């Protein structure tokens, strides 16, 4: 795979910043995030019995329309990514499906690392750490399931066999469960976890500090950021 140019992007405070996400990646992420959240909430209305009040009547009409609108956005998000940042899209896709010994090591030590800050135990990670890859992988597979089963429920009523329809409902729900669990974890880590604050900043601004990159995405930093920098002019290099 061709290496992708990842220039350093500037400084935040006294920290050197590294570009982590392109604009398209960030846009896709946030569109996906919004669509997913809306789908989740409107979906919950019909999944959770105690939210029935929002599923029927005028609220139901609205939530049904919103769910369908969000579904369109949901489908559109990866397309934005693909169209505007195709190389990164394909790179990330490949990454998500590439698993090795480092991932095993990472997953083994994740709890200790994230709960007690046991340093030095985590194998170096690529652009995405194993946890993020797990999330992405789940999202990608679920995305396919969501779209297929969603379209069956949307347009296939009465024309597909009952069991296909009912199975679609179940698969849709199982996909929700899988994605939601990882979504909770993801959300927790980026919003609440003290060690991952920068992660969310990066999704807004596209950059992380070099320290964060080294710490959390060492492989990526050394392979794709540093090598690149060596090949090019780096105004902030201390060499």
């Amino acid at each position, binding site marked *: 795979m061709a290496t992708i140019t990842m220039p350093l992007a500037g400084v935040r405070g006294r920290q050197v910043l590294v570009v982590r996400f392109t604009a398209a990646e960030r846009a896709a992420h946030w569109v996906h995030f919004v669509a997913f959240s809306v789908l989740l909430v409107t979906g919950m209305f019909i999944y959770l019995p105690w939210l029935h009040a929002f599923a029927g009547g005028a609220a139901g009409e609205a939530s049904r329309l919103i769910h369908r609108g969000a579904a369109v956005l949901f489908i559109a998000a990866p397309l934005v990514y693909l169209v505007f940042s195709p190389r990164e899209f394909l790179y990330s896709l490949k990454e998500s499906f590439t698993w090795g010994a480092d991932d095993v090591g990472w997953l083994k030590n994740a709890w200790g690392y994230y709960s007690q800050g046991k340093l030095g135990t985590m194998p170096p990670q690529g652009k995405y750490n194993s946890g993020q890859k797990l999330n992405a992988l789940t999202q990608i597979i679920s995305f396919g399931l969501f779209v297929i089963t969603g379209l069956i429920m949307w347009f296939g009523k009465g024309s597909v066999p009952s069991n296909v329809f009912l199975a679609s409902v179940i698969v849709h729900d199982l996909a929700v469960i899988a994605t939601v669990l990882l979504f909770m974890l993801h959300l927790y880590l980026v919003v609440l976890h003290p060690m991952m604050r*920068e992660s969310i900043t990066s999704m807004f601004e596209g950059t992380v500090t070099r320290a964060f990159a080294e710490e959390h995405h060492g492989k990526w930093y050394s392979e794709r950021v540093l090598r690149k920098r060596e090949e090019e002019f780096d105004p902030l290099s201390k060499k």
Partner: protein
Amino acid sequence: MSSIAMLVDTSKCTACRGCQIACKQWWDLAATRTKQTGSYENPRDLSPETWSRVTFNEYEAGGKLQWLFLNLGCMHCTQAACVDVCPTGALQHNDTGFVSLDREQCNGCGYCVEACPFRIPRLDVVNTLTGEAKASKCTLCQDRVTNGLTPACVKTCPPGALQFGDRTAMLSVARKRVDTLKAQGVAQARTYGETELGGLGRLYVLTAPPTAYGLPEAPEYPALVNLWHNLAQPLGYAGAGLMTAGLAVNWLLTRRARLSNVEEK
């Protein structure tokens, strides 16, 4: 189990189809365009405009021909898959136990249509793209019944093949009728709906095997609805619960360990 029930005594039905039209008349349901294709049975299926209809089947056994007529509509199951899958509460077991439908509440998801073991509810789709739709089915004239009237079909039935009242009373009428029919030589007379799916709110007296009428011999609660209930729902709750707990523990531990972002180290 419902406390009231409708009894369809097919041994008395003359297929005048008063029930079919009474339902349309009371509920102002439009006629659909049909075609003669070699049957008395029209419309050929239930639809958003047809909540109750009479089926015609011929059955010959032991040299005796029977022309079987069956008033078909919602069975008002005790174990009603449609109620279980209805996400809006539009379908509910009401106070008396029959399956009421509040079309105002229905959001058109269509789960009930697919979950019903008798293929009764139908979706009245207004717009496929927006998903605007309403489920429709016999509600046993929930408005008439709760206002002290009998269902339109029951009221109109000339030979009294349709009856309505306390389920226990209906059952005893049905059993007595079966005894009488058997004594008259109708060997295959039987009730239907006593125990099926926990007991149906629409009970039948049949004079031939259920399959001769196009009814399932032993209607089954759909396995996938069970799966949904027993797997998808608990799994969701369990997963979410475990995850929440795990994250909470993690958060407490991070507090104790005074962890912080690399930036601050």
